[in-house]
């Protein structure tokens, strides 16, 4: 058990999340929990709020209303124009400053759909910049850890290449490795296989399966229903910023809560 996470059974508890972009409400009164070691899949039509949800959970976007509790230690609380970070251990509450949010984001890894690598930096630099700058880890130690991850992800031959020179599959593996280098408590994946061909998708799925077996708590946004069914402990169907159904994959597939869920599942299945 990770001592920093304590005995929390839920790694993320979101309550009443609301988020509006411009005048368009993207998340509407959204509540759910991510359990320890759970892989929670998020499916739903495009524009339904999946990416915004991940960005809000990672602290990249601030919620307008609601609370997000992280592993019984930190709580992000928004009400009106005020967003606060509450330390649940000390009872201290501060406004969500750049530094406070940075410290939260360090523990919530986010892997982007478009990789978001630093294209001009080498693979090794992409992997070690976070640990050396954010975690104050020694360069040698960071590089040693990076090399272990590169070996595991089949990137050893590419460590000195610039990220911009890599293929899509390699970039996605670097992006996952970069998130893992920060030793996150939770990992969020945003449609990470959407730009990959079936072989590369299979590759990346293997990595996620390994992570799941390693007890990593994950939220996986995906359109790959077979993959979601096989790896995720539960599936959330999200549309128009709200949760329509949150169930175990076989339940959701066998008994869709609404005709919309059923239709969506049929389309996903026929697209594969």
């Amino acid at each position: 058990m990770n001592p920093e996470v304590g005995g929390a059974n839920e790694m993320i508890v979101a309550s009443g999340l609301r988020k509006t972009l411009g005048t368009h409400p993207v998340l509407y009164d959204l509540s759910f929990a991510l359990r320890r070691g759970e892989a929670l899949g998020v499916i739903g039509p495009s524009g339904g709020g999946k990416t915004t949800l991940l960005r809000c959970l990672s602290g990249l976007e601030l919620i307008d209303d609601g609370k997000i509790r992280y592993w019984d230690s930190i709580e992000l609380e928004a009400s009106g124009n005020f967003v606060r970070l509450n330390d649940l251990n000390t009872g201290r509450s501060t406004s969500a400053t750049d530094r406070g949010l940075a410290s939260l984001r360090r523990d919530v890894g986010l892997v982007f759909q478009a990789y978001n690598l630093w294209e001009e930096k080498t693979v090794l630099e992409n992997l070690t910049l976070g640990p050396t700058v954010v975690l104050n880890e020694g360069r040698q130690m960071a590089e040693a850890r990076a090399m272990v991850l590169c070996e595991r992800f089949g990137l050893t031959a590419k460590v000195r290449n610039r990220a911009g020179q890599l293929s899509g599959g390699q970039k996605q593996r670097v992006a996952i490795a970069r998130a893992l280098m920060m030793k996150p408590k939770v990992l969020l994946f945003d449609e990470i296989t959407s730009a990959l061909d079936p072989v590369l998708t299979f590759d990346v799925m293997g990595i996620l399966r390994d992570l799941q077996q390693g007890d990593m708590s994950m939220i996986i946004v995906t359109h790959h229903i077979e993959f979601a069914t096989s790896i995720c402990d539960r599936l959330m169907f999200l549309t128009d910023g709200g949760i329509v159904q949150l169930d175990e994959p076989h339940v959701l597939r066998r008994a869709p809560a609404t005709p919309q869920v059923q239709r969506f599942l049929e389309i996903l299945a026929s697209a594969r």
Partner: protein
Amino acid sequence: MQYDWNFGRLLPYVHAFAVGTITTIGLTAVIIIVGSVMGIALGLILATRTGRLILYPIVDLLRALPPLVLLLFMYYTLSEDVIGFAVSAFWVAAIAMSLNLAAFVGDLVRAAIDNVPRAATDAGYAIGMTRRQLTRHVVLPHVVREVIPGLTVLYIGMLKMSTLASVINVTEVVYTAQTVISEVTRSLEVWTVVGAIFVVLVVPATYAARRIERWVGRGPAAQ
């Protein structure tokens, strides 16, 4: 063409040309250093909404003025009659052209900051970087890479533009040339020498600039 070339007449002025060349190099170096420091600071301010509102009118004004007009304006402004003490012609030229360079460098830096991909900054924030860490390790390297090609063009242009300082009697190469011509009346030879001096200064600088651009663009990564 029956022109009788005679460079021998210029031999007594070798020292004067050397001093003029050193003054040209010195003036350009001062302009580049002062103009760049001011320009980078300006660019950082212009990257903010408030900074843009306040400073863009000034930047646009500086960019609109022909350098010669700005130089003459500063020459008459930084005089004893106006400010109570005299500034040497060298420093008047340095200040005027630094302002001109700063306006262009500022806009270059502002554009480079605006062009930092959102994906790159999101990635930095996502791994827990603070704004300062992101600026130092993600934004700055990107800005340096983006501005270097534009800066080298501006710097080489400034080396040539420094000849304008001759109109306010800075004893740089062109001023020296005009003095020599008034004494030896060998204009063609004198301007040939001046041209040769600039070729010797500019061509290596251009090659160096290209090497720097390639180095910055490629970085240390394996190819």
